[in-house]
Structure formats: C-alpha cells, structure tokens
C-alpha cells in the first residue's frame, strides 16, 4: 500500500482534529460546577431563582469559549487544510 506525503498529512490533520476536541473536557467540567453551584444557590435562596439562572447561563456561555477554540482548531484542520 502506497501512502503519499499528502495522504499522510491529511491523516495526521484528522488525528490532530480529534486531539483538539479534548479541549471539550475543561468547559464540560466547568459548566457542570457552575450548574451545581447554581442548584445549590437556588436551594438556599429560591426567591432569587431567575437572577441565579441568568448569571449561571451567562457564566457558562463565557466558560464555553475555550472548548469552542478547540472546535475551531479542529474545523480548520479538517476543512481548511492549512498543511495540505
């Protein structure tokens, strides 16, 4: 079986794209912690439920960014092919 240099680069790009999505672990943990703390806060102070939910969602949306950077890197590796 012949593997040309081009194919090798594409294969390595696909592996790199998969590795880039490991970045999804961090935001997952962080969002989970935020949601847990939000649930605890609602348990202590049910009257402030809407404020807590808004703050939690805002923080989670910002915390998501690092995972999305991983997604962007993976998409660039897969579809833009900067090394091909």
């Amino acid at each position, binding site marked *: 079986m012949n593997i040309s240099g081009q194919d090798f680069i594409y294969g390595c790009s696909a592996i790199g794209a998969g590795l880039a999505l490991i970045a999804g672990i961090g935001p997952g943990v962080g969002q989970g912690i935020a949601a847990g703390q939000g649930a605890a806060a609602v348990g202590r102070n049910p009257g402030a439920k809407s404020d807590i939910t808004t703050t939690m969602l805002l923080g989670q949306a*910002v915390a998501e960014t690092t995972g999305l*950077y991983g*997604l*962007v890197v993976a998409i*660039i590796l897969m*579809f*833009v092919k900067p090394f091909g």
Partner: protein
Amino acid sequence: MGMMKIPMIAREPDFMIHGVLKYHAFGQELWISDTTVGAWIITALLLLFGFIASRKLKTVSESDTPGLFQSGLEIAMEALENMAKGTMGANGRRFVNYIGTIFLFILLCNLSGLLGLRAPTADFGVTFLLGLFTFCIVNYQGIKNRGFGHVTSLFQPIPLLFPINLIGEIANPISISLRLFANLLSGVIIMGLWYGMMPWFAKIAIPAALHAYCDLFSGAIQTYVFCMLTMVYINDKME
C-alpha cells in the same frame, strides 16, 4: 468561514458557505456569498420594520391609549435600557442605541437559521467585524476619558507586564468574535449533519428540538453575551 475558499466541493452533509455571484475588484476574485445575501435580507427586514414602526408611532396622538404594537415596542425598549443601565450605570443611556442595534442585528442573524438561511454570524468575517467595532469604541472611549493614561495603563502595575497587557487588549475582540462565530458554526454543523445524513423519518419532528436548542437558545444567549461583554469592556474604560 472567512479563511476558506468560497466555492466548496459539494458534500452530502452541507454546512459550507456558498458563493452566489463572482465579481472582480482591485485585481482580486471576490464572491458575494450567501452570508452577504443573508445579511442583506436581515438588514432589509430591520430597515422595513424600523420604517413602519416609526410611522406607526407618529400617528398615535397623546390622548389615545397606546395600542398593542406601541406597548410592545416600549416594553422591549425599556428592557434594553434596563440591560444597558444595569451593566453600565449612568453611562448606559449614551450607548443604548448602539447596543440595541447590534443586539437586534445579531439576534436576527442567529435566528435566521429558522428561516432556512445560513446564519450570517456563522461566518468569521461578520463576527470579526462586530468585534472590531467593539474594539474601536472601547479604545476611543479609553483615549477620550483618560487621555494619555489610556496608554500608560498598559504599563500598570509594573512595566514588565506590558506585553501581557497588550495581548490582553488585543485578545478581547478576537475572543468575543470567535465565541459568537464558533457557537453559531457548531449549530450550523449539527443541523447540516442531521439534515444531510439522517434517514427521512428522522427529519420529521426531531429537528424542531435541535432548532430550539441550536438556533433559539444558543443564539439568544450568545447575543446577550456579546452585548453584555461589549458593555463591560466599554464600561471598563469609562472611569
């Protein structure tokens, strides 16, 4: 995506930007893509709505009780002003026009996936431009309010930290634009994969839930986050 070549090979699950019309300018080959067309449609809708709404508001006399349309608009405007005032305090009133404009534009762009358009904000060219607007306003306000202190604040607390402060300033527009872009792009990819790869019976009711999450929920939250962060960045430079 801005970095991609526009005319893509048509794949089965389709989530790429497509060129609509090719033209030449300044010796370069440029494309009018479906991002541009979507942005035009949304701008036209907003202009039309603004025109009709302002005409309708003028015809209401003072003795009349405001109708449903006017009441709704006033409630929405008040919510917007409260959002600006909650984040920026007394400065909020000056920026509520700008914030309201980008809020409506980004919101309609994010929701345009429901109309079958490819969301214009799922193109880095659009979101980076919005981030650059924020960057320009932030730095204009910094120079206007602090003068030379805007530059020297980069050397705080010790001059050694200048490179880090500089990177931190430059990273702001890139970070807020990439956040919006990547969220919308992930929604577009998920919808494209679902519509392109699932058998026909999976396309009946299930996409409604996906649209509700990817377009409505994610789109609304990211619009709010973008406007909120813009206001926070501007407010940082106001005092």
